[in-house]
């Protein structure tokens, strides 16, 4: 029974969802770290244990206090992660997001926080995959530094990295064409391009690329081409465990390597030809 004589200040307003969630988070601080493992089963159903992912404790909303409240971005992150489970059934749509919100105990109207074409869900997924790829490559690098594993030759490294990244699409492969078409909408191109280029950059960095000349661009352009074409091949590949796709990938990487050699050869041939011509010109002028 409250006779409210003043509008409650925002600082004291009990947020209906955000704080409550963090209370649950406090109860299981150890469980959340295990959620980092990538699992390829979208139907991995753990409705009680929310997929917390990365929840740093420094955020608050509106510049107000503290560590007890998760921010709106974190909540959105959780909703999108929960929504991925429903993608095979509903596609990359606002409905999948609404179902995800329902599993977190929120109203379906919470899907209104995101854009209605489902692009937020796709971008979230792509960004998560890229993060997982980085972690994978990081771990591999650590093993190599510790001397527990051999350093792979560049073509093998690139092939493995692209394969690992593409394998993350397998659970959603049926609806992936829809996702690609949404990512190509003009509104989404800046963000999707950004994610793509940072992923390619990451792969090259871990591959040990330290070039500072024009090679930097050509390497990234080549790998982007390999990745995109392999992705398209994967979409219509029906062989067991996508063998055809990985073979296609191997061939493309081999092509790229030999193209590098061919480029060197062309350059040296070109230089030789130019020198020959210069010599001929000097000879002619001396006659």
């Amino acid at each position, binding site marked *: *029974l409250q*006779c*409210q004589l003043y*509008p*409650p*200040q*925002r600082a004291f*307003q009990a*947020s*209906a*969802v*955000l704080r409550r969630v963090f209370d649950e988070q406090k109860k299981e601080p150890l469980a959340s770290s295990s959620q980092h493992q990538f699992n390829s089963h979208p139907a991995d159903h753990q409705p009680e244990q929310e997929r917390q992912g990365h929840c740093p404790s420094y955020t608050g*909303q*509106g510049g107000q206090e503290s560590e007890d409240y998760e921010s*709106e971005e974190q*909540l959105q992150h959780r909703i999108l992660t929960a929504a991925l489970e429903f993608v095979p059934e509903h596609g990359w749509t*606002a*409905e999948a997001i*609404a179902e995800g*919100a329902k599993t*977190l*105990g*929120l*109203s*379906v*109207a*919470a*899907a*209104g*926080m995101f854009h*209605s074409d489902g692009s937020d869900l796709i971008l979230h997924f792509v960004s998560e995959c890229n993060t997982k790829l980085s972690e994978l490559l990081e771990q591999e690098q650590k093993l190599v530094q510790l001397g527990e594993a051999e350093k792979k030759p560049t073509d093998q490294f690139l092939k493995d990295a692209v394969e690992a990244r593409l394998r993350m699409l397998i659970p959603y492969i049926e609806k992936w064409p829809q996702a690609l078409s949404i990512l190509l909408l003009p509104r989404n191109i800046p963000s999707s391009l950004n994610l793509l280029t940072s992923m390619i950059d990451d792969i090259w960095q871990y591959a040990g690329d330290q070039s500072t000349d024009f090679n930097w661009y050509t390497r990234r352009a080549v790998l982007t081409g390999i990745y995109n074409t392999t992705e398209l091949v994967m979409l219509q590949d029906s062989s067991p465990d996508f063998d055809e796709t990985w073979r296609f990938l191997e061939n493309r990487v081999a092509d790229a390597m030999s193209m590098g050699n061919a480029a060197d050869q062309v350059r040296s041939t070109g230089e030789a030809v130019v020198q020959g011509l210069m010599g001929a010109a000097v000879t002619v002028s001396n006659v």
Partner: protein
Amino acid sequence: AALCPCRAVLALRGGVLRALCGSVRGLAAGTQTHFGFQTVTEEERREKINQVFESVAKKYDVMNDSMTLGIHRVWKDILVHKMNPSPGTLLLDVAGGTGDIAFRFINYVRSARERQLQRKLRSHQNLSWQEISESYQEEQCKPLGDSQVVVCDINKEMLKVGKQKAQYLGYSEGLSWVLGNAEELPFDDDKFDVYTIAFGIRNVTRIDLALQEAYRVLKPGGRFLCLEFSHVSNPVISRLYDLYSFQVIPVLGEVIAGDWKSYQYLVESIRRFPPQEELKAMIEDAGFFKVDYRNLNLGIVAIHSGFKL
């Protein structure tokens, strides 16, 4: 209909006490507020607004069309489109009088539901005949997919017009009509998915109370949507708009509805209503998150949206 006032005696007591507090406060402090460009007490304002809507109720839709040249339909369409309700949504339309938003909601949900069922059938191509006939039956029984809309209004006349319209247009399922005050809703906490108030919040005497009630009845994750006339910042358009509002609209009111004063009140109340940023701050004060607004027609109308997080 199951969503109608189902709170226990406790709530009623609470409601009555709050109303007493309100009126005592009013009498004691003589809180002045505005009615158009006049200054009146809160009680007088409520009474006057009640009279305004009683008199305009029958011609409300006709006047809307003539004043806005039919553009109000587009605004309401945009509101429902922004809401993007999925089947199974519970909507509370406050100050929903003649039911415009409610009918649009029902249409939207119905077509969304059809698309959903079609997609389900298409993806299950190898169902047995029994399963297929069962899904067709489901389509017959649940064309709205459990979505419901409750239209709440403080004015009996407006609700009457709304019910007649519903009957005439053939809307019956998933629709309820409740008499209630936006400052004190007769519903339980955490009930609704979406709360809308289209062209109504301007007439509420204590906007902060209405916003608090909105927060209360929404489920966690629920959405607050407000469609209202707002502030035009462009000086050229603003002058034309003022000219149109003060010279043309009251005349239309007299000619079509025989009621100059009500439409004079309407245009004055638009000018007295807080502009976009101020309303946004008030919504945030009530506890909503991710509050933002979108101007339609350069600010003549604005849609504010907030989430209960």
